[in-house]
Every structure is written in structure tokens, then in C-alpha cells.
């Protein structure tokens, strides 16, 4: 095997923070090389060095044996390096086809050759299994479809080197399998690939070698994946064993109903939703991306209108008109899956982010002015309880790691005295450690008598944390499963429930979103 990309001793600092410290990695032709590490370990920085977005402070990068130094992304593209970045890389108003071909728009007689663009893009859409009109503007696509377009775009460069930064974070297992087939095919054709994922099962099944980063340094460089287990990978990533065992629930639910939906239909196409959530209970809501989970949460908090059926809170009929209504009158909080977009305000202080739900309570009686002192006094206990790690509460939320941002996002609802908390994918893109801490927190909250609706597409998570599970598919609840806390057992049951229905109306499930 020959090394296509070879990086030795790369370092990169950003204003005082050492993101990469003497990191090495090499990619061989015809391999899928895993890059692992917790959030903030430096994976994305490394990818951005290889793609010419960042220039390293020191270190050597060789491409096919030749030393290179990229000054811009253009240099990397010209050198045959393509990447699927974590950032959205698409132009909303443009069609799928034009987005795929954006960096090489074909021209005939000085004008764009639209037919050529469509034909070119269609090849790659077919490869990845994206059955949509190539002229569809990408702003009309779902998150999973956007991700597939990004991947098609990267594949279409036919590059020797393909870097994939969490390509499977938002797509369904089925779509992921299809992607893996494509990647295996590329491997057989000699493409060198770098694959970043938080899902270790994927890494173990797909990759040939693994490089691990911890706090910006190598803890493994190109180790063969054979003979390495999940435990070993986690130890390399966090430096010790993962706390896999979630302690058993000490308090059971007292049986009082906190939230009940009866025959609910919504403006977002839900039909006949029946759901009961008890005080002190963690109810898991499992389903694939795009099955209507988050939309149901938004309907419960009044952000999407309920068109039929009954909603009751604490046994009394409820009419929730807005998110403010949900919080003030029914004490329902929603931790959004889109942490940065909906969960927190990035350029505001931690204290402000948390106190926003209680400003009216904190304001002085007559003047209605808010005082910084009161705000901090109110926020401090909750920040300490959740162990939000920051030098002070004045630190901007945008400066925090993903895990700490999520804690801020949860803290603001707790401070507001929420009794029913809906948590939507609370641990997506969060490192193993913080994930365990959040799982413990969810348990504690339930032990305190809060009712928790935990939405997740992470099956190990939901099996570890939830008491019961509602399974959702195509905007319906297709089954309720009692949790046995055995991963094998539960995944079989859940898949059975989903596929039992999916087979019956494969039409709706499969073609539901094709324009």
C-alpha cells in the first residue's frame, strides 16, 4: 500500500487554544481510515488542514510522496482531495444538480450548459440512491436528503482522497448502509478515505485502520482495526473506560399522568397519536430521522398546531397555543435537537442563556429592570448542579464545547421549573463522557418526579435510559415497547415494530418525501 496522504507532526493553534499538537496520520490508497476522538479533540481541525481551509502552524504534509502546502480549499480540490464537511455546504436557492457541480459548472459558448449539469448530477444522485428531481432547490430538502446531496457532491469530484466528517450523523441506517456500499466500492478502486463518526459500530464494521485524537494529540496512529474492540477505542478516546452501566432507577413513577395525547392529529401530518407520559417516567420516543418525532414535540409545545384529538396535562384538558404558553401555564420545556440554531444564543453569556426563561421572575418589582447580580445568583446553583464547565458564567455560550452547550440548553428549562421535559436527541455530536453525564442527569430528573420524553435515534442510548419506548414511523406511533434494557432484545423488537408497519405501507414510508 502506498501512502496517498501523509501528515507528520502537524500543529495548529487558535488564539491561545492549541487545537492540534504534533499530530500525524497517513491515508493509504484503497483504505477506509477511521478518525476518532471526542468533540473538541481536533478531528475537524485536522480535516480542515488536509482540505486547505486552515494552514498548519508547523508540520509536514505529503501528497503521493511530494511535500505540499495548501493555501486555499481550491489548492486541495485541484490536488484531488474532496470532503464532506460538518457545515452545510449547499446553496439553498440552487437546485440539487447545480449544488453538486458548483465548483466546476460546465460552460458551452460562454453560458452554463444546464443539460450537462443535470446529466452529471444525476449519475451521482443515482450512485448514492437519491431519488429526487435534480432541479429541486435544496432548501426544500430534509436534513437527511441534504446530507446525501453533500455526499454526492464530494463523490462527484472523483478524487483520490475523500474525507467524510460525520457523514452518517443525520441519515437513516438504511441510507448509511447504501453509503457504506459506495465507500467499499471506492475502496476497491483505490480511493483513500478518512471516515469520522461517533458511532463506533460503524467504524468497526467499515474501516481498515484507525487514528485516534485526544485533546489535540495522537493516542493512536493508523492502527489496524482488526483486533481492536469497542472498549479499546473508547479507552483511546477518553483515556479510561466508558461508564456504560447506567445505575438502576431508584424511584419508580408514582403513576400520576403528566401528559396525555388522545387521537391527536397535527398540521405536520401526524395521525391518531396516543401517548401517555407519567410523572417520574422516562418515555423513549424512537424513530428514524424524518419520521415526525421532533415535529410531534413541537406540536406538544404549541409550535405546530394540533388539528384534532385531545391533549391533557396533569389530567386536565390543555390547549397549548405557543411555546410561552407551554412553559408558563403547563410547565413543559423542550430541549431542541438543533442546539446551535434553536437551543442557545451563541453570542450571549451562559448566564443570559439560562436565565432567559425566568427573566420576568427575576426583574425588579417596580422598575422591571434586570440585575446582573440577580441573574447570576439564580443561575449559579443550576450551573453547578449540571457541572457546566466554564471559567465563569459570563463566558459566551458559543465558546463552550457541544456537551456544555447542551447542558446550558437543559439548564434553562430546569431553572424555569419545568415539570415535563421533552429532550430531542440530547446527545447528538456529544462526547462519550458528557453523554454519560447527561444520561445520569436525565435519570436524576425523573427520580425527582419530572416527566421526561426522550426523543432519540441512538438505540443504545434509548435502551440504556428509557423506561418504556414509543416507536414512531411515518408520523404515527406504531408500537409501545417495555424496556428490558437488553440491547439485542430491544433492537430486534423495535425493528420488528417498524418493519411490521413499513412492509404494510411501504409506499407511504418510502416515497413520502419525493417531490
Amino acid at each position, binding site marked *: 500500500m502506498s501512502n496517498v496522504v501523509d501528515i507528520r507532526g502537524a500543529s495548529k493553534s487558535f488564539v491561545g487554544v492549541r487545537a492540534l499538537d504534533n499530530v500525524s496520520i497517513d491515508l493509504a490508497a484503497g483504505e477506509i481510515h477511521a478518525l476518532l476522538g471526542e468533540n473538541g479533540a481536533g478531528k475537524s481541525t485536522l480535516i480542515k488542514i488536509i482540505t486547505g481551509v486552515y494552514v498548519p502552524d508547523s508540520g509536514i504534509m505529503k501528497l503521493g510522496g511530494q511535500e505540499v502546502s495548501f493555501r486555499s480549499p481550491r489548492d486541495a480540490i485541484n490536488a484531488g482531495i474532496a470532503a464532506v464537511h460538518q457545515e452545510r455546504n449547499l446553496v439553498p*436557492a440552487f437546485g440539487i444538480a447545480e449544488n453538486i457541480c458548483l465548483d466546476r459548472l460546465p460552460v458551452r459558448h460562454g453560458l452554463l450548459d444546464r443539460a450537462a449539469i443535470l446529466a452529471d448530477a444525476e449519475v451521482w444522485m443515482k450512485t448514492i440512491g437519491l431519488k429526487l428531481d435534480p432541479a429541486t432547490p435544496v432548501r426544500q430538502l430534509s436534513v437527511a436528503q441534504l446530507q446525501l446531496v453533500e455526499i454526492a457532491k464530494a463523490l462527484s469530484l472523483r478524487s483520490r482522497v475523500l474525507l467524510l466528517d460525520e457523514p452518517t450523523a443525520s441519515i437513516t441506517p438504511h441510507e448509511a448502509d447504501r453509503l457504506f456500499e459506495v465507500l467499499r466500492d471506492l475502496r476497491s478502486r483505490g480511493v483513500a478515505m478518512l471516515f469520522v463518526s461517533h458511532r463506533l459500530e460503524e467504524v468497526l464494521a467499515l474501516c481498515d485502520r484507525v487514528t485516534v485524537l485526544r485533546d489535540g494529540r495522537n493516542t493512536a496512529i493508523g492502527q489496524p482495526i482488526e483486533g481492536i474492540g469497542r472498549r479499546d477505542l473508547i479507552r483511546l478516546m477518553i483515556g479510561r473506560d466508558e461508564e456504560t452501566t447506567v445505575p438502576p432507577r431508584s424511584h419508580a413513577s408514582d403513576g400520576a399522568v403528566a401528559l396525555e395525547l388522545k387521537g391527536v392529529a397535527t398540521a405536520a401530518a401526524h395521525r391518531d397519536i396516543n401517548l401517555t407520559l407519567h410523572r417520574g417516567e422516562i418515555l423513549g420516543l424512537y424513530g428514524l430521522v424524518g419520521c415526525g418525532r421532533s415535529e410531534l414535540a413541537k406540536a406538544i409545545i404549541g409550535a405546530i398546531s394540533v388539528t384534532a384529538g385531545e391533549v391533557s396535562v396533569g389530567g386536565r384538558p390543555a390547549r397549548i397555543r405557543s411555546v410561552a404558553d407551554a412553559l408558563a401555564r403547563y410547565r413543559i420545556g423542550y430541549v431542541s435537537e438543533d442546539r446551535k440554531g434553536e437551543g442557545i444564543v451563541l453570542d450571549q453569556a451562559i448566564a443570559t442563556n439560562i436565565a432567559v426563561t425566568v427573566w420576568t421572575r427575576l426583574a425588579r418589582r417596580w422598575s422591571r429592570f434586570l440585575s446582573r447580580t440577580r441573574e447570576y445568583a439564580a443561575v449559579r446553583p443550576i450551573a453547578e448542579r449540571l457541572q457546566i464547565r466554564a471559567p465563569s458564567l459570563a463566558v459566551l455560550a458559543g465558546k463552550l464545547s457541544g456537551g456544555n452547550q447542551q447542558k446550558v440548553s437543559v439548564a434553562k428549562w430546569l431553572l424555569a421549573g419545568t415539570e415535563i421535559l421533552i429532550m430531542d436527541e440530547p446527545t447528538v455530536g456529544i462526547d462519550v463522557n458528557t453523554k454519560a453525564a447527561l444520561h445520569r442527569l436525565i435519570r436524576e430528573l425523573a427520580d425527582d418526579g419530572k416527566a421526561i420524553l426522550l426523543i432519540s435515534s441512538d438505540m443504545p442510548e434509548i435502551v440504556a435510559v428509557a423506561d418504556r419506548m414509543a416507536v414512531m414511523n411515518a408520523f404515527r406511533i406504531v408500537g409501545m415497547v417495555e424496556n428490558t434494557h437488553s440491547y439485542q432484545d430491544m433492537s430486534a423488537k423495535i425493528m420488528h415494530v417498524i418493519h411490521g408497519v413499513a412492509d404494510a405501507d411501504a409506499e407511504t414510508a418510502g416515497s413520502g418525501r419525493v417531490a
Partner: protein
Amino acid sequence: MKRARAIQLLRTGNAGLALILLVAIVALAIANPAFLTSFNLYVVLTSVALWTCVALAQMTTLSTGQMSLSVGSLGGLVAIVVGGLCELWGVPLPLAIAAGLAVGFAGGFLNGILIATTGINSFIITLATFSAFHGLTMGLTRAIPFYHMPASLKALGNARFGAVPLMLGIVLVVALVVDLIFQRTRIGRYMLAYGGNATSAVLSGLSTRKVVIFAHTMSGLLSAIAAILTVGRLQIAQPTIGEDWLIISFAAPIIGGASLTGGYVSVTGTLLALALLAVINDALVLLGVDPFWVQVVLGGLILAVVSVNRLREGRRLGEAIAR
């Protein structure tokens, strides 16, 4: 499929705007038959022609998600350069026009290069150049217009075929070229791509500096064309040309559907918006309304149209959530 097309057409907003324009024309024709006289139509079309390049100049910077406050003051500078060359030095008209276009090009290029190299917001940079260009114009002329314009320039501004001014033909050709640039050329798509998602443009390896400089230079050229036509129409090169361009330069593209954050513009929409504004302006004149009220109506119209767009976006968001 056909129905889907029709829905798509309605969504883009131009059909709605065309409908409003049609209703306005019919209503005005009924209310005051004087509207349909050849001379009145000529007046309306002339104002459309005069404003077209002004609006396109701003539309071009809007496409990248930026703006130019100096559209008008650059126009004023071009106007006095053309006027001065003709009157003071007797430069032949084609050369004077070329010099005017060169000034527009240079002014726009300056904006572009300042924004691209300093990374400072376009609002700030063009606020500064707005002041500089305006000061230059006033300093050079001491605020005194050039009165003696060549006959050929006057003819350019006043020639008409029935109700249709020659200038309208010129600006329609310009508009066509601008549309072609945005729809069918790489640089045009890249301006929109940069406006729609700057990160995407960077990661796709596009030169964002080139895109920004091109957009502002193109904007400057369009300002220059607008200024030359205005001199032809007024028959004098006034230093105050361009002082009243700012509002219309934003109003027309935005009513025409452009996104203030960049990524989407419509030449057709902008032209329809200009026609609608001209008809409304004419209506107020024909109905004897004080011209100052026209500005109030313009303000109201901007609010109304942006609200409608906003609602439409909201519905789209609802659909996206429902998906």
C-alpha cells in the same frame, strides 16, 4: 407537471406582482382615461427606463448578500465627469461616455477591493465611499451643473417611438444581459452562491474575493449607465444626480423578490416592481395627490410586499417542518 409548474411560478412571486401591476393599470385606466394617452404612457415608461439600471446596480450587490450605499453618489460623479468632458473640453460624446463608464467601473472596483481586502462590512465601506464620491462631485463642480450637453446625448434621452422611449430599449437590453449573467454564467451563479451560503462558496474552492469585486464593479458600471441616461434625459449634468436613488435602488429589487441576505435576485421581478412603482407614482399625479405623499406610499408598499414575502416564506417553513 403543468400544475406543478404553475404553482412554482406563483411561488416565485413574479406572477403575483404581474397581477397586481395589471390590476393597477386597469383600475387607473378606468379611473382616469388620461392614463392611456400616448404622452402619459411615455412619461411612465421613461421613469421605468431611468430607474432600471439604478435598481439593477443595487440588485447586483444584494445578490451577494451585500449592499452599496454609494450607488447614487457614484452616479452623480459619473454624470459630472461626462458633462464636464463634453462642456469644458469638448470631448466627443462616445469618448465622454466611455470615460463615464470607466469612472463607474473604477468606483465599483474600489468598493469591491476595499470590502474584499479589509473584510469590513459593505455597509461601512460604501457609506465611506458614498461620502467621498459625493464630496468629489461637489468639490469639482462647486455644485454648479454643466448646461451645454451635445445634441446627440439629448436625443438619446428624449427620442421616442410613439409611447416608447429609446432609453427603454437600451435598458431592456442591459437588463437582459444582467439576467443572462445571473442565470447562465459562472460568475453570476457564484455571486448568488456566495450570497446564499458563503461557507459553501469557500469550501467549494471559489475565489470569494473575485466574486465580491466583480459584483461591486458590475454595480458601479450599472450606476454609470443610469447616470448617463439621466443626463441625457435632463439635458444637463447636475451634480445632484443620484441623490434620490437610494430608496428606489433597494425598493425595486426587494419588491421584486430579492433576498436581503443574498442568494436570490430576479431581474423580471425588479422590472415589474419598477413598473408598478411608476404606475402608482403616475396615479398619484393624475389624481392630483401631493408628490411628497408618493414617498409615503412607496414606504407602505415596501412594507406590504416584504410582509407578503415573509408570509410566503413562513408557509414554506411550515411545509419544511411538515416534511
